[in-house]
């Protein structure tokens, strides 16, 4: 992908708020998130469980289940506002221009239909091709994602596949219509480490080959470091830090990012003492006057409990939401 083409973002999310209106209160799962993804780019979205990264992905596709709702913000895909699209328009985008893969590949495949049928269905939903042609394409897709004997595997059912193989099927399904953007929601969490690497490699390969952008959602910092060009760190429904992966990893600004990186064991330094993050994720049912990370922050000061910090650029393409970095200097 040439850099010139990358000037227009394929996806631009601005001030996204997705809230869940439960009986116990409003859960502000995503609370003002803005980011862009450029064509051909792999962006990593990291954070601990419940920080809102998956909900962000669901919000993009308009798949937030009740009682959740996107309450504010714009999601511009290819210059079109996804939030203003009708159901039909949305469905033409989903699976066609934006595809998604899930954490649990077996669960993402309907257990009562054969893999082939689900693949063919994915193809024929967006392409006017014959069943036979779709089947032929499905064989090609399975071959492409590295499943041996695709002809024999197609009539089989999801429970006959291993996790890794199933994830390849899901990826094949996502690729069926050559999407411009692939949202990978923890694609490797449920897999063995060796398989993880294969899947990551596959994603990278496909990114190269098809030129599609990838939003890689994960809690695994190591994977991000390995595969993503840019990294967005989320905390408590907001972006804590974002920037080029090497910059963020080499020079983490936000105390949360620092803590995250500190808790990753480094294989090069086996003697390193892992420093896990204390405390619990913030209660996002209430509106925070101060910083959401303040209770767990080792570098907090008075302002932190009084004022919610804004996301500020500390360097070109490197933004941090922390009172430690008052303004671009």
């Amino acid at each position, binding site marked *: 992908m040439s850099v010139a083409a990358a000037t227009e973002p394929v996806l631009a999310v601005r001030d996204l708020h997705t809230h869940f209106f*439960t*009986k*116990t209160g409003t859960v502000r799962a995503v609370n003002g998130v803005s980011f862009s993804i450029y064509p051909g780019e792999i962006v990593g979205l990291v954070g601990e469980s419940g920080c809102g990264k998956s909900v962000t992905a669901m919000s993009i596709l308009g798949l937030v289940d009740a*009682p959740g709702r996107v309450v504010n913000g714009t999601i511009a895909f290819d210059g079109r506002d996804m939030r203003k699209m009708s159901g039909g328009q949305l469905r033409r985008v989903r699976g066609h221009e934006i595809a998604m893969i899930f954490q649990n590949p077996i669960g993402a495949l309907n257990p009562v239909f054969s893999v082939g049928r689900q693949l063919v269905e994915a193809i024929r939903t967006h392409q006017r091709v014959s069943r036979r042609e779709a089947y032929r394409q499905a064989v090609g897709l399975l071959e492409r994602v590295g499943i041996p004997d695709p002809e024999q595997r197609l009539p089989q059912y999801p429970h006959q596949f291993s996790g890794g193989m199933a994830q390849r099927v899901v990826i094949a399904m996502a690729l069926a219509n050559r999407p411009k953007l692939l949202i990978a929601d923890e694609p490797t969490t449920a897999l063995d480490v060796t398989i993880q690497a294969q899947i990551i490699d596959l994603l990278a390969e496909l990114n190269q080959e098809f030129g599609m952008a990838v939003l890689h959602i994960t809690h695994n910092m190591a994977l991000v470091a390995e595969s993503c060009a840019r990294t967005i760190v989320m905390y408590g429904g907001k972006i804590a830090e974002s920037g080029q992966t090497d910059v963020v990893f080499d020079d983490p600004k936000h105390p949360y990012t620092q803590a995250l990186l500190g808790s990753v064991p480094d294989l090069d330094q086996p003697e390193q003492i892992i420093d896990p993050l204390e405390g619990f994720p913030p209660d996002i049912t209430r509106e925070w006057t101060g910083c959401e990370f303040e209770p767990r922050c080792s570098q907090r000061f008075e302002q932190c409990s009084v004022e919610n910090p804004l996301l500020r650029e500390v360097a070109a393409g490197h933004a941090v939401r922390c009172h430690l970095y008052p303004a671009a200097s």
Partner: protein
Amino acid sequence: MLSFSLIPIILTIIIAFAAPLLPISDPNRANLSVRYIPPLSEAFILGTDRQGNEVVHPERNPDLFPSSVVERYIPPVPKHYLLGGDSLGRDMLSRLIWGSRISLLIGIFANVAVVMISVFFGLLAGYLGGRVDGVIMRLVDVGLAFPGLLLALLILTVLGPSVINMAIAVILSSVPLNIRFFRGQVLTVRNAKYVEAARLLGYNNLRIMFREVLPNVMPLVITVTALNATSFFIFTAGFSLIGMGLKPPDPDWGTIMSDGLRALYEAPAVILGPTILISVLAVCFNVLGDEVQKILSPRESQL
């Protein structure tokens, strides 16, 4: 919602227990001159007939007034029939209240028995598996081969009609299905991590069954109990209908319904009384089951 559904149930139970203390007339006292008197009627009592029954004012109730029964004239005294009279002119209000005692006995106590037996065998079969499971499930299969109603009918025919026998018939005929259901639930829980953990901790099977597995199927047990209550009410009504329920003249809701079924068109109030009561209680039990399940299972409570 919970208290909303609990109030009618508790109220019914209290009224049922308090029936002997309430200022209501004898539920079995027949008085033909108020036969099928409509609800909210005020009968003007003229006097008593040769059997000592009150005789109502003929103008108030001309259709129902038999000419030959009044022997002496006493100035009219009004008497209220809140829910009307049945085929023998028995006070429906009083019959409904007394009838609730037996209906609740079957609907609640037989139900509890059914659930206890079913949960016990369901746990044994589902948790222990193997030969125990085989034996229990083969017996259950045989039981299931007879539709519940037919089985109960046969049991009642062999044993004869009475409250206890009706309870036995209801229990025996609904236990197989319940065992199968609970076994299925136990199977889903059996291999859960916490059960494995308990096993690794060396707890004995009984402890695991009742301390680990049972609490996790409890929400379903409660839902099923609530649903059973409804069907048991209707079940017993069916038996009373075919004359295999209780010994007359003692009322239960089913007997009253069967009485009303003969006069559906002439006195719909007779069948409406127990039908509405059963419907209301059934709704309450259903809602109660749902609510309890929501409380006990955290996943539901998020919504």
